[in-house]
């Protein structure tokens, strides 16, 4: 009795199934159902018997039979059969059962249902013949999830199964609707790969949002932007603007967030709608006057030195007050004009410019080293150096280096000159008001024949495009005129690029016609730029212009034009995902390798940042199977674009390719990692790139160096020690006389990228809200063309975004405001300014001691100490007093904060008073930190905050200003909790006011160059190098 008996075989029960009596069959089935997990192998041989029971109409436990069969099939791994019988089992199949069987089948049912729904949505003719039983199961499951409070699961399933009705139900019933909604938005971006459907989901979400009592306008507007509904956004903004002060702040914040996504066409639309609305709502007088003034300001400031947006605002509001109108409306109009300033991008560009200018920490010594190491006659390295300088100072308006080396600069001839002039555009990027004045000396002079070289004129037009990239309303007209008035292909080249940049994605028909005319002249040089320009103009519109371009690409003989067009076509399908498939198919099947190459770009851009499996699959296929090296290289590189939303994946995916025998594939792998992991400092990426930087093939080294710089941008040595190694490697390559030109160029550019934008920018392809940054992606795509055409290097500046937190009050000014970064300051500080070692080794080159020195160095590498001493002495001989003082200062101050050190070295600049003030603000904030490496740091508005640092940022709780949106990056609107007290503003306004003053001064061109720069973003003039 004690022994517990167990069944050892199901044969007895199976035999019972054969019994004639119904009750016995029933009993057998019930028993089988309970032991099926143990005896499925035995039962499987009797499945036909059980099946026949199920099919027997008169048998009253058919469902039980179906359940048993289903279970057996499940254990045999035949999920399809299992599912179809489970459906037959009807209510006996228990969705809430906690067993492997139930789980597996439910998953299967969901998959089945989801894939069915997906298919049904594609081909409408096979209408809704989904198995109702399947539907019932899925619905039962969704309801259960909702009942159990597993809302996220329910939402996920509903999205997957395309049941928006259930999605809505789940969200509405959820106790945390806001959380649920933001979860859904994330979900739709990450997991919904079908674009149209994603739109549907978002539309549904917006609908729910709008029904809420306290809608989250920030998220709604992000969704609406994705959906491309400017009207609704304009409505929301307008409503908010008419509301309380806090609402207005929120509206500003929304506007800044929208601007961050860089969708110019959309922003323009919103702005126009707001314009259209104004006269109707507010007093026609002030209403129409305001926007009129405003736009006039924007339009003319580029020529009039007086223009400063801030100033303009003040005067117009003053005007508005003079009218006897309702104060509410004045307030509203005032707010409206402010928000239009933001939406036009002016405000954020202006603030960014201020930030980059005041925080510029670029290290001129590095450039000096490069300049001296590079051979005079080597034009490639020469223009690489100029480019490097441009990148280092991108957006800072600091052109000291150029001014100091005018004679050296004048060696740039022909296309090098074109590039050099374009470089100015990068340096002054975003200097919207002064841009045209700055470039004036180089621009084609109307009337004056033979004013300057066509190269510098073309370059200047290109530069204007770079300055106004994606915000080109003001400059577009001028560029068009320049394009029409010239027949020189170099100028046309510059103008096409410039126009493309300035009117990025606006799909302006007139501009398109202008560029098309250039294309049809069939000149190789101009045609290439025209192709790219058309692409830029039509970015992401998927217009049928693409087929027109494709047709011409087939007609023309010029490879350059084909290439330009191929890239252009690729640009037009930016972000269109499936919609682009036909075009991609057409291009990738083409005979011409250049068009296939364009097809790779089309794949890359259409599926940018989606990590779409199909696209990856296709690219990998081309990467290993195409006959053309160019196509293979591009295919691998394109992986970088497809994967940039999941940078951790890229090194893994391309790791095999990076060991390919084909150098083009290796090169592509390097850039793919560079692009997708840009600015992350990802350890895997660095490990993958490291061996490639010493590859046997020169251009692979070049690609790897550039990619490495892109990955490491803004990481310092205490974050990853390999950054230091890499910097030393770059220096070595640059100084090595026997190094190939190609890799030398790579190293020079890499040094530039590493310290880009005065060490205050990073490469960011995703905005904070995980939307892709159109300009940045386009910038990198065109940049990667530098393989064929060096001037395109400058497109990388489009990808730079400042790493800053800039807090603004309701007047869009910078109040004094502090917040804490809970991390060791050393982790995120600026890299140390180049050490004395660098300076002296650079200086040493010409001296006689050098050779013995170099030997000593090679013999005993490690006695840095003694060397440092010796160096000091050599330095004393060779260096200017000023610099020595600087050096001594940095030596003595030793443990001083990095802000201070770099402040004193980099700036001879720090002489301007305002600037000095700004510095003090920073350094006082810094000094609050105690000496032994503190674990936190207090940062003052505006502050440099690296992406990796963002998670450590905390806002101080009882501070006077409270951020509208707690996300710690970019522009943050601050709510003033003590509105009655006078506000204390940060003095960074200084540069802006100086703009106007120096703007006047600019007319008198006699100022010594260095001084002028010290003062501020200095307009045109002094160094016109060599006008031919």
């Amino acid at each position, binding site marked *: *009795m*004690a*022994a*517990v*008996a*167990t*069944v*050892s*075989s*199901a*044969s*007895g*029960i*199976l*035999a*019972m199934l*054969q*019994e*004639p*009596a119904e*009750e*016995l069959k029933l*009993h057998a089935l019930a*028993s089988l159902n*309970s*032991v099926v997990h143990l005896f499925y192998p035995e039962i499987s041989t009797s499945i036909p018997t059980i099946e026949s029971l199920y099919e027997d109409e008169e048998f009253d436990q058919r469902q039980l039979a179906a359940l048993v069969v289903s279970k057996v099939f499940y254990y045999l791994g035949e999920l399809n059969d299992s599912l179809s019988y489970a459906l037959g089992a009807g209510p006996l199949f228990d969705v809430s059962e906690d067993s492997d069987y139930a789980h597996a089948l439910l998953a299967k049912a969901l998959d089945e249902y989801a894939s069915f729904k997906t298919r049904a949505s594609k081909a409408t003719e096979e209408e809704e013949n989904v198995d109702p039983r399947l539907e019932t199961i899925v619905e039962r499951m969704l309801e259960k999830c909702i009942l159990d409070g597993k809302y996220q699961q329910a939402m996920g399933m509903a999205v997957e199964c395309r049941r928006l009705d259930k999605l809505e139900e789940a969200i509405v019933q959820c106790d945390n609707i806001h959380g649920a909604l933001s979860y859904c938005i994330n979900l739709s971006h990450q997991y919904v790969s079908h674009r149209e459907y994603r739109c549907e989901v978002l539309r549904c979400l917006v609908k729910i949002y709008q029904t809420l009592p306290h809608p989250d306008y920030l998220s709604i507007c992000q969704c609406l932007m994705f959906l491309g509904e400017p009207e609704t956004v304009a409505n929301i903004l307008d409503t908010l603007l008419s509301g309380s002060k806090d609402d207005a702040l929120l509206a500003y914040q929304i506007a800044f967030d929208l601007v961050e996504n860089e969708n110019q066409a959309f922003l323009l639309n919103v702005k126009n709608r707001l314009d259209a609305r104004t006269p109707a709502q507010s007093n026609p007088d002030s209403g129409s006057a305001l926007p009129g003034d405003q736009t006039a300001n924007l339009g003319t400031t580029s020529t009039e030195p007086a223009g400063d947006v801030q100033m303009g605002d003040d005067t117009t509001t003053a005007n508005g007050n003079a009218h006897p109108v309702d104060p509410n409306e004045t307030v509203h109009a005032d707010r409206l004009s402010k928000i239009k300033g933001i939406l036009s991008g002016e405000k954020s560009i202006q603030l960014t410019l201020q930030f980059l200018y005041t925080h510029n920490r670029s290290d001129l010594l590095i450039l000096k080293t490069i300049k001296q190491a590079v051979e005079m006659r080597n034009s490639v390295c020469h223009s690489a150096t100029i480019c490097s300088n441009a990148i280092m100072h991108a957006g800072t308006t600091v052109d000291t280096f150029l001014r100091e080396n005018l004679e050296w600069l004048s060696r740039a001839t022909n296309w090098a000159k074109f590039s050099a002039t374009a470089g100015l555009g990068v340096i002054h990027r975003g200097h919207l008001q002064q841009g045209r004045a700055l470039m004036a000396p180089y621009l084609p002079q109307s009337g004056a024949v033979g004013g300057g070289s066509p190269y510098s004129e073309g370059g200047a037009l290109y530069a204007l495009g770079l300055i106004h990239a994606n915000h080109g309303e003001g400059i577009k007209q001028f560029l068009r005129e320049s394009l029409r008035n010239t027949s020189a292909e170099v100028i046309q080249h510059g103008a096409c690029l410039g126009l493309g940049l300035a009117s990025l994605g606006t799909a302006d028909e007139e501009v398109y016609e202008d560029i098309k005319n250039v294309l049809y002249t069939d000149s190789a040089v101009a045609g290439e730029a025209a192709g790219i320009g058309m692409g830029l103009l039509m970015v992401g519109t998927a217009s049928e212009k693409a087929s027109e371009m494709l047709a011409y690409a087939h007609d023309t003989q010029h490879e350059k034009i084909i290439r330009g067009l191929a890239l252009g076509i690729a640009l037009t399908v930016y972000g269109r995902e499936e919609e682009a498939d036909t075009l991609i198919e057409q291009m990738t099947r083409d005979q011409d390798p250049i068009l296939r190459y364009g097809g790779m770009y089309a794949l890359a851009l259409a599926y940018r940042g989606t990590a779409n499996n199909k696209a990856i699959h296709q690219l990998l296929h081309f990467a*290993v*199977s195409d006959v053309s090296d160019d196509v293979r290289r591009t295919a691998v590189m394109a992986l970088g674009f497809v994967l940039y939303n999941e940078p951790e994946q890229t090194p893994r995916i391309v790791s095999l390719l990076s060991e*390919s*025998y084909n150098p083009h594939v290796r090169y592509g792998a390097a850039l793919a990692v560079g692009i997708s992991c840009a600015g992350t400092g990802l350890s895997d990426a660095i490990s993958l790139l490291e061996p490639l930087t010493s590859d046997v093939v020169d251009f692979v080294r070049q690609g790897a160096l550039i990619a490495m710089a892109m990955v490491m941008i803004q990481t310092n040595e205490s974050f990853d020690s390999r950054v230091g190694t890499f910097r030393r490697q770059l220096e070595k390559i640059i100084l090595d006389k026997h190094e190939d030109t190609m890799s030398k160029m790579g190293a020079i550019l890499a040094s530039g990228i590493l310290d880009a934008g005065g060490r205050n920018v990073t490469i960011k392809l995703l905005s904070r809200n995980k939307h892709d940054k159109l300009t940045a992606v386009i910038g990198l795509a065109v940049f990667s063309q530098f393989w064929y055409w060096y001037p395109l290097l400058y497109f990388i500046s489009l990808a730079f975004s400042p790493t800053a937190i800039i807090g603004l009050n309701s007047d869009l000014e910078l109040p004094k405001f502090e917040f804490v970064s809970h991390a060791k300051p050393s982790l995120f500080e600026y890299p140390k300014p180049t050490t004395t070692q660098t300076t002296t080794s650079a200086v040493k080159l010409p001296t006689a001691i050098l050779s013995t020195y170099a030997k000593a160095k090679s013999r005993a590498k490690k006695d840095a100490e003694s060397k440092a001493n010796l160096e000091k002495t050599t330095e004393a001989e060779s260096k200017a007093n000023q610099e020595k003082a600087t050096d001594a200062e940095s030596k003595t101050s030793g443990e001083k904060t990095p802000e201070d050190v770099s402040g004193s070295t980099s700036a001879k600049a720090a002489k301007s008073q305002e600037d000095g003030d700004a510095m003090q603000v920073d350094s006082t904030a810094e000094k609050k930190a105690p000496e032994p490496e503190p674990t936190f740091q207090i940062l003052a508005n505006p502050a440099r905050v690296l992406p990796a640092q963002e998670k450590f940022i905390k806002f101080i709780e009882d501070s006077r200003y409270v951020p509208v949106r707690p996300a710690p990056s970019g522009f943050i609107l601050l709510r003033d909790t003590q509105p009655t007290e006078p506000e204390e503003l940060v003095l960074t306004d200084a540069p802006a006011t100086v703009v106007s003053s120096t703007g006047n001064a600019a007319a008198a061109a006699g100022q010594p160059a260095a001084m002028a720069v010290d003062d501020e973003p200095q307009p045109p003039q002094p160094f016109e190098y060599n006008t031919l």
Partner: protein
Amino acid sequence: MDPKLVEVTQLFARFKAAYARNDLDVCANLLSQLKVLLTKFPSLPPSFQQTPNAVEELTTARDIYEHAVVLSVKMEDQDAFERDFCQLKPYYMDTCGIIPPSPEEYPILGLNLLRLLVQNRIAEFHTELELLPAKALENLCIKHAVELEQSFMEGAYNRVLTARQAVPHETYVYFMDLLAKTVRDEIAGCSEKGYDFLSISDAKQMFMFSSDQELQQYIAEEHPEWDVKNGSVFFQKVKESQPCKEIPAAPVITQTLGYARELERIV
């Protein structure tokens, strides 16, 4: 005592009475009622719940099924035999330690072996044999079946046929008769392969028939395709099996080359 058990016992008593009277129809009828009643007992396989009456219930159930098996032999119903035996088997295999072994166990197991032999299911025969403990092989009933199988395999068909006289249990007779037919089928199969034709007398001896009529009848029933003419039996030649399939050379070669090329590209 549990009323259900009482009911079963009473019904079983009636069954036994009918069985003794050799009233097979009544038996079958009662038996199916009994089986339905048995499903109500939770202590029976496959659940084996430990109820207070488990031992009685199990013993009764086993008894019923043993009778069912024997009954099916009597009714010469092989399907029913298999069904009942399968249901009986768990009582033998899985109830050790709960109820004492049944005296009928070995005869019935032997009977089952014999059935498998008759149905020429040799593989299953050996599987069953393997499941038996070593000492079971000593049992007369089991030994009988094993020896039969050995003779059968050796081709000593005469020994198989003569063994009918020495059955250990009266129920075995039915199967022994069937076995003779199985043996003849086996011989027929071999002859077909081995000879083009056989003279009637040889064939009669081979098939161990005592008269020509018996042979004629057998051929007419089982192998109508054979020809009996000129005093001989002509076997229909089994058609030549198809020539071995061609190797699809071309596709294999292209595929292999394709792989090689892909490999080269990838590396």
